[in-house]
């Protein structure tokens, strides 16, 4: 019959697009099941070609002889004397398809019009050929999809947890709290939510400690619950959500659920809350459990499911009044444990480098014992990055020699692309040797690992509340951790775990790791507790209460920061900080920044400090990277370098779009961090705006015109399509690693040759990857708007720079460090600094000051000897820093330099003076001596005035923000500008020579005069200082002595060598503003200065109110109440009058 067909279609060519188009008219019309132009349509024609080839091949080989078969068939049916099924006599594969396609209507129509159609149209043979192919195609797609479904169901059935399905559902239905404990591979994270969903629970939240897990679980579970393309299952993380009103199962981070509880006290939106991985004991998770525990009483209908590894299950059950526990066995293959303690001669002492020999021996042992055809990779656990690179180096030499290993490091400071390599596949005969921190213990799961080497060590962050310092120390791991590491060898087959310690060591390990809550600063936690009205943190029932001292330190710190008042209640700034998902320090910076015209810069710096540094450590030693980075560096401090980097990146993005990837690589930057920054920045901006701290976006002129908007809309549509396409392609196969993979990576990541040297496959992969980041970026942000915003913060004038530094310093305070006085005689790498509680700290090598420490030194030409060991200068500087972290040394990182005297006077919590204010002690540890009493008084007086005004405006703005929805009017722009002008002038043009030193314990012993007797006090009758510091009453300080003038300034409390009476010594002084010329005490003088306004202003004060009152009724409609802060009066003025009024102040001020 085929030869028949060929004869008929002499002019018919299956390969001709025209011919195919004619068939498309019959089978793939606009409303057909498969439409012309759709992906399936394309697939069909590809299928068609294969189908035709298959048919021809079968015909040639003659294996499908129809005649012969018919014979047999007839006999067969006759022979069986049973019921006749009425099957056709002749076999045809067509009979196995349960689908048919009816196209008779069109065929008939075509038949009628055949007369005028050309003879090249499809004949009935062609049509039936095409139909047959279509039927097979439909059948094939059905089989394909059904196969997927069957496989899926089979996999679900094979999970250990499957047998417990009904019991889990029944337990949850009958108990408010259930604990499901199961080890790796039992399937609890993917299955339990599905079981609950399909048994009728409708609003389920499932928390995860990691964002990445939220995304991958949501993806997997939506696939498994056959809702891959719906939104029944979604996730929500910081910047991304797939949640819709139809979402019934939501994966989210612990932190996010806590934020939701802040908004929705009873969590009414959920019926079930599943808290996964509770055994990991993260800070957020422990806290969340505490919050949920107290919430259960208010929400009788709420079901809580805790999921954990089989670690310390009783603890969780007991915490929830003996909640039922369901234990599920894991699915692990047997693992052989080999204890191989490191011999004493190879054990390194603390200061030495790790000896890699024990690790090398294991690689050699594996090569000897296991043939290379037997696959299985090696996972090696070390404590830290330095240890990893030591062992990596040694292993790489061995690997290069044997060509049987690919050595790959894995830790969080690697670029994401580098981290991703551990998932790629080694070529046959070669094993991966992954050298990892404990990141591979829980966060990263690598399949195919057969051998695990466990050093038994971990570096963990601990917190020293006394020095307010983080410490990264090496510890022995816990038994639980050790078992977890071992388990990594048995995920895909039987495995071996080499423990580089003795069994007796193992038995001496702590049973469980120390929960995070006992290791970290609790500032943010306490703040959040306060804002959730959870009462006294000390009496909150935690699953494992943190040390009381830790809580106390946090409360004290929050009070210092102004987030809590003296009674421990939340202040207005505190309640705002509680809602910002960042560190208190960063939050404070944002609030401060919103007051001045520096919001854009502060947003960037705050965002930069909330993500990992974009500067890759590995590129630091690459000279090309260093050169390319140079223009980004700012010797004012690391925040400025980050600011420059971000701004330049945005500029590149605007100009070159996806080209930014290359730009980043050249500079050794992880672009992902910059993407995170831009998202965070936007979130911060929205938060500030929603709290009324920022004006709402004025409609950008560029975006408002119709054409542009439309353009943007079309662009967005395109971008969305690209994103969808990418999502569809995602999860494609893994790459195969090259043998020399481990060797380059580390150091060539910054050079351009990297991309070129790689295989085609890889380049395509990265190209795809770049597109999607760029696409997401463009979808989320309007690049031109962002550029505008960034332009504002680019090329900061020196004045803006000074102000930004001050803001950062106030944000970072009390984290200040003083350069050691002998630094100028030391090498660059040996520069030493001191903080209040920790002496002899050094600058982290990643900081700009590590390479350029001279900028911190007092210039020689500016110094004057002020006595033994005291250099007088007006150029002393301090470092304000974000973190103090002790590893092998205590390191300062993220530093900014600030002028010492000015910064201290403007931000310090405690400033104490002697009688003539020439000696100042700040926070009880920094001593400043000024040469001239005259200058000293002036500086102090100016600082006090500026600070009072700053505080007033800040409070005004925060007060405004608490009245939600109110327009941004708290602080008028002019007033704010006047303040920033004053601050800048003070910062830049104060040229007072002073000495600066750190007080030793000896000095601080007799620092203060101490309380004085009544008679002495009588002497110095407290002057009324209220006009100077509203609300503050100068009263004797009960401890230090002297007069407590403001919350931070105590006058004349320092025990001085000078005579005690200088405070009442009056000296002739002439006021620059008024005609006053008379003898005054220092305090009297400051008082006068604060209340005496320049002549012009005073005049204004008298005139203005009259003008306001005289305004006729017709004018008053145009006037509004204007509060002039200079005159300190409410005036009724029109807008022009306000401007005039302000101008007068400006002129008169000069």
């Amino acid at each position: 019959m085929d030869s028949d067909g060929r004869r008929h279609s002499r002019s018919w060519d299956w390969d001709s697009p025209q011919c195919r188009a004619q068939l498309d008219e019959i089978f793939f019309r606009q409303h057909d099941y498969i439409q012309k132009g759709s992906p399936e349509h394309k697939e069909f024609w590809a299928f068609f070609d294969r189908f035709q080839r298959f048919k021809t091949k079968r015909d040639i080989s003659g294996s499908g002889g129809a005649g012969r078969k018919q014979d047999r068939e007839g006999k067969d049916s006759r022979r069986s004397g049973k019921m006749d099924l009425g099957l056709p006599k002749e076999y045809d594969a067509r009979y196995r398809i349960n689908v048919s396609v009816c196209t008779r209507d069109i065929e008939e129509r075509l038949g009628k019009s055949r007369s005028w159609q050309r003879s090249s149209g499809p004949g009935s043979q062609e049509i039936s050929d095409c139909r047959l192919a279509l039927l097979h195609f439909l059948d094939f797609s059905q089989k394909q999809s059904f196969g997927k479904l069957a496989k899926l169901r089979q996999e679900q059935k094979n999970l250990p947890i499957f047998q417990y399905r009904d019991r889990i559902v029944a337990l949850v239905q009958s108990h408010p709290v259930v604990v499901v404990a199961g080890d790796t591979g039992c399937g609890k994270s993917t299955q339990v939510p599905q079981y609950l969903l399909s048994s009728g629970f409708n609003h389920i939240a499932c928390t995860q400690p990691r964002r990445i897990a939220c995304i991958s679980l949501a993806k997997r579970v939506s696939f498994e619950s056959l809702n891959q393309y719906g939104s029944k299952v979604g996730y929500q993380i910081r910047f991304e959500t797939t949640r819709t009103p139809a979402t019934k199962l939501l994966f989210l981070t612990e932190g996010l659920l806590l934020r939701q509880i802040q908004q929705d006290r009873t969590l009414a939106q959920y019926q079930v809350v599943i808290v996964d991985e509770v055994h990991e004991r993260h800070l957020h998770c422990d806290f969340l459990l505490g919050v949920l525990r107290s919430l259960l009483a208010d929400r009788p209908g709420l079901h809580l499911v805790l999921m954990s590894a089989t670690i310390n299950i009783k603890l969780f059950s007991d915490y929830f009044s003996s909640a039922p526990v369901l234990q599920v066995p894991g699915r692990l293959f047997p693992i052989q444990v080999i204890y191989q303690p490191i011999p004493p001669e190879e054990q390194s002492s603390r200061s030495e480098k790790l000896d890699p020999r024990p690790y090398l021996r294991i690689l050699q042992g594996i090569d000897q014992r296991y043939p290379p055809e037997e696959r299985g990779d090696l996972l090696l656990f070390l404590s830290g990055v330095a240890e990893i690179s030591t062992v990596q180096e040694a292993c790489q030499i061995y690997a290069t020699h044997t060509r049987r290993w690919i050595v790959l490091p894995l830790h969080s400071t690697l670029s994401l692309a580098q981290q991703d390599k551990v998932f790629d596949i080694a070529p046959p005969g070669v094993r991966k040797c992954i050298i990892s921190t404990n990141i591979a213990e829980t966060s990263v799961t690598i399949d195919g690992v057969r051998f695990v080497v466990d050093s038994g060590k971990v570096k963990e962050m601990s917190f020293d509340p006394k020095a307010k310092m983080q410490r990264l120390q090496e510890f022995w791991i816990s038994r639980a951790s050790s078992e977890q590491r071992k388990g990594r060898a048995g995920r895909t087959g039987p495995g071996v775990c080499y423990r580089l310690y003795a069994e007796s060591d193992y038995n001496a390990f702590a049973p469980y790791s120390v929960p995070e809550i006992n290791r970290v600063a609790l500032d943010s936690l306490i703040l959040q507790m306060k804002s959730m009205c959870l009462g006294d943190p000390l009496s909150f029932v935690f699953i494992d209460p943190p040390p009381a001292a830790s809580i106390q330190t946090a409360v004290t710190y929050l009070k210092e920061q102004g987030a809590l008042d003296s009674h421990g209640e939340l202040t207005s700034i505190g309640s705002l900080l509680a809602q910002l998902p960042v560190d208190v320090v960063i939050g404070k910076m944002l609030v401060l920044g919103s007051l001045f015209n520096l919001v854009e810069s502060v947003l960037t710096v705050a965002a930069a400090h909330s993500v990992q540094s974009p500067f890759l450590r590995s590129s630091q030693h690459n000279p090309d990277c260093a050169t390319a980075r140079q223009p980004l560096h700012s010797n004012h401090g690391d925040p400025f370098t980050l600011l420059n980097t971000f701004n330049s990146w945005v500029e590149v993005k605007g100009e070159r779009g996806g080209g930014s990837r290359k730009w980043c690589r050249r500079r050794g930057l992880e672009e992902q961090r910059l993407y995170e920054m831009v998202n965070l920045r936007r979130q911060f901006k929205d938060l500030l705006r929603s709290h009324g701290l920022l004006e709402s976006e004025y409609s950008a002129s560029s975006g408002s015109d119709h054409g542009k908007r439309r353009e943007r809309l079309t662009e967005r549509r395109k971008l969305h399509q690209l994103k969808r396409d990418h999502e569809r392609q995602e999860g494609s196969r893994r790459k195969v690693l090259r043998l020399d993979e481990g060797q380059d990576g580390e150091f060539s990541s910054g050079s351009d040759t990297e991309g070129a040297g790689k295989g085609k496959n890889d380049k395509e992969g990265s190209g795809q990857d770049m597109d999607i980041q760029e696409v997401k970026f463009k979808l989320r942000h309007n690049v031109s708007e962002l550029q505008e915003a960034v332009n504002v913060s680019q090329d900061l004038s020196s004045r803006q720079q000074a102000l930004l530094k001050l803001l950062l310093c106030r944000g970072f305070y009390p984290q200040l460090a003083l350069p050691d006085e002998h630094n100028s005689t030391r090498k660059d790498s040996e520069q030493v600094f001191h903080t209040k509680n920790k002496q002899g700290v050094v600058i982290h090598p990643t900081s700009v000051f590590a390479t350029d420490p001279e900028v911190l030194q007092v210039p020689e030409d500016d110094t004057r000897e002020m006595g033994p060991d005291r250099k007088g200068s007006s150029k002393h500087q301090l470092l304000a820093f974000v973190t103090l972290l002790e590893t092998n040394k205590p390191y300062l990182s993220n530093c900014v330099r600030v002028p010492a005297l000015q910064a201290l006077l403007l931000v310090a919590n405690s400033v104490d003076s002697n009688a003539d204010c020439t000696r100042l002690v700040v926070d009880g540890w920094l001593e400043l001596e000024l040469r001239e009493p005259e200058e000293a008084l002036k500086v102090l007086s100016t600082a006090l005035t500026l600070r009072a005004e700053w505080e007033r405006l800040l409070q005004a703005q925060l007060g405004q923000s608490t009245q939600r929805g109110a327009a941004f009017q708290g602080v008028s722009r002019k007033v704010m500008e006047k303040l920033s002008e004053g601050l800048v002038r003070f910062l830049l043009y104060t040229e007072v020579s002073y000495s600066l030193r750190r007080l030793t314990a000896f000095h601080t012993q007799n620092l203060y005069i101490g309380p004085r007797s009544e008679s002495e006090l009588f002497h110095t009758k407290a002057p009324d200082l209220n006009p100077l510091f509203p609300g503050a009453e100068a009263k004797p300080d009960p401890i230090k002595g002297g007069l407590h003038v403001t919350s931070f300034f105590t006058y004349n409390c320092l025990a001085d060598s000078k005579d005690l009476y200088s405070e009442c010594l009056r000296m002739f002084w002439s006021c620059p503003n008024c005609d006053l010329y008379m003898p005054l005490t220092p305090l009297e003088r400051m008082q006068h200065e604060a209340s005496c306004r320049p002549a012009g202003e005073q005049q204004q004060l008298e005139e203005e109110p009259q003008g306001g009152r005289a305004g006729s009724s017709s004018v008053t409609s145009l006037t509004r109440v204007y509060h002039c802060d200079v005159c300190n009066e409410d005036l009724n003025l029109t807008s022009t009058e306000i401007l005039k009024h302000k101008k007068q102040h400006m002129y008169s001020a000069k």
Partner: protein
Amino acid sequence: MASHCRQLFICQLCGLNSPYTYYGQKPPNTRAIVLLEECFVTKDPFSPDKERFLVLGSLCSLCSTRVCAGSDCSLFYTKRFCLQCVNKHFDQFPHQIQTELAKKKQSSKAAVS
């Protein structure tokens, strides 16, 4: 609890289950396509296209057992037969099908032993 009320297709032989949205020979929005038996049909969960359907299974034309479309449970040859019925009337099926089934039996036996 809408999900609870959704009709569930369960294969009586292998237990495979999935909710179905349509039972019959003409699933919605399939235009020229007609099924040659009454089927349990759902939206194809593996296709982004909302209109794609997936046949989960149907009733055996002989014994009316609910069977899934998987080749371990049923076979379509002009009609749906559950594999039990196929075995009962093994000799009436064309030799192509017979050899196929025999091969399958062997390989599954090999896998078990």
